[in-house]
């Protein structure tokens, strides 16, 4: 780590971002509660650099993970994440809190990812994953349930991550926006630029696929033991 990193990073304690991110984050600055993301962005626009540090601390990890799960390779993910933050810095002057900051941030990320997908599709059609008309057997509700106790099995958690990586990119994006940024369907629709019904069906397909794949994993596990 270079000298710049060492002089800036001590201010940023490695607080886990999303998993413990409180739901009252959107409260508008009542005493004792964390300041809302929009307020922080407005403070940054007004010239307070520490507000940006706080925003960066909150969303650095969720954004990086979101981008990493939807791009090819860590280098490309780092590049896209960097472009997103630079866009936020450049756009600070014209930022208007019309929507939640998460919607603003992740919509930039989603647009950048879409640009990459498009350019990749132009180069090779192999990447195009069929999103519509999924295998009916695959998403059939066969009574499979999603386990609740994730802490018990590392294999189960790893199976979940693998199953997420196997989702078609649009469904993966919708699921990750919910899991990483805790966005509602309306916010996800706004961030991805898709219609609400499209987003809803993508989420349904994503959950059904994950449920089925985890049930398949459970059956394999039971057989092997």
């Amino acid at each position, binding site marked *: *780590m*270079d*000298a*710049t*990193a*060492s*002089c*800036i*990073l001590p201010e*940023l304690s*490695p607080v886990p*971002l*999303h*998993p413990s991110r409180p739901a009252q984050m959107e409260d508008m600055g009542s005493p004792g509660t964390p300041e809302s993301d929009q307020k922080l962005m407005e403070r*940054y626009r007004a*010239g*307070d*650099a520490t507000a*940006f*540090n706080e925003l*960066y601390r909150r969303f*650095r*990890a969720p954004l*990086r*993970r979101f981008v990493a799960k939807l791009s090819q390779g860590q*280098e*490309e993910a*780092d*590049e896209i994440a*960097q*472009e997103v*933050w*630079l866009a936020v*810095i*450049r756009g*600070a*002057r014209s930022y208007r809190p019309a929507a939640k900051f998460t919607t603003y941030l992740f919509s930039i990320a989603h647009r950048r990812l879409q640009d990459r997908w498009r*350019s990749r599709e132009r180069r090779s059609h192999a990447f195009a994953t069929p999103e519509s008309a999924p295998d009916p057997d695959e998403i059939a*509700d066969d009574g499979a*349930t*999603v*386990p*609740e106790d*994730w*802490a018990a099995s590392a294999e189960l*958690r*790893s199976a*979940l*991550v693998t199953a*997420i990586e196997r989702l078609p990119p649009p469904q993966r994006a919708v699921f990750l926006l*919910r*899991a990483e940024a805790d966005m*509602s*369907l309306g916010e996800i629709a706004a961030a991805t630029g898709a219609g609400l019904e499209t987003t*809803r069906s993508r*989420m*349904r397909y994503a*959950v059904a696929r*994950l*449920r089925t794949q985890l049930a398949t994993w459970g059956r394999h596990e039971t057989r092997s033991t």
Partner: protein
Amino acid sequence: MSDPDRDPDLERLCAGYRETVQDPPYDAADAALLGVAARQTRRLAKRRLAYYATAAALLAAVGLSAAVRSLIVARGPANIESRTAMTRQAPAQDRFRAQIARMSQPALLRQSDTGFLQETSALSSLQPDPACGTAPEVDLNAPGALDDLMVTKPGDYVRIRRIIAGVTRRPDEDVARWIGATFHAGNVSYEPIWLTSYPPKRRLRFCLGGTGYSAVLTITSDGARVEMARGPPRMRQRP
């Protein structure tokens, strides 16, 4: 099927996902981005201050001219000569006002637009630029070169920080390919400098978005770093 917004399975899956993931560690790119953000804040504050100062000067000039005009008018119709002089002054005042208006807002906008276009063009350069060979080269070892870059081309600045942090993490013969493939840089060369120096040094050259960059990197066990070159010795001036 149920509404996915209220689906308990979705909540369970999200909980499982959050339990699985970990925060990636901080690295040089994070520090570079935060540095860019802080520098941008100072730049905006300075620009805002300049804008207010110009606006205040403009208002003061307009107010002063109005006061002078009202003073002359208050002297009455007898003083025809001064009224004629006032009429003669009016176009000059208008020119003065227009000049101040030109100096204030549009100039700032033009400046910022140019900067923004430079940055976006640097970001969107996805292909190696064939014009790199003729482009002027930025010496990153020059005093203040990286700081200037942080202001003028923040995208390039963060990329260069990532490049410097990454060169020692891969074999030397792979560095040029890595920089070209990851950062869409052209004309990359990464050559040892044959000097008996310790720690060893290497010269890195590449081209990003039409601008050529070169740096002498000092390679240590902690990674590579760009050491600032000493300027030419200053001549003491006689009083």
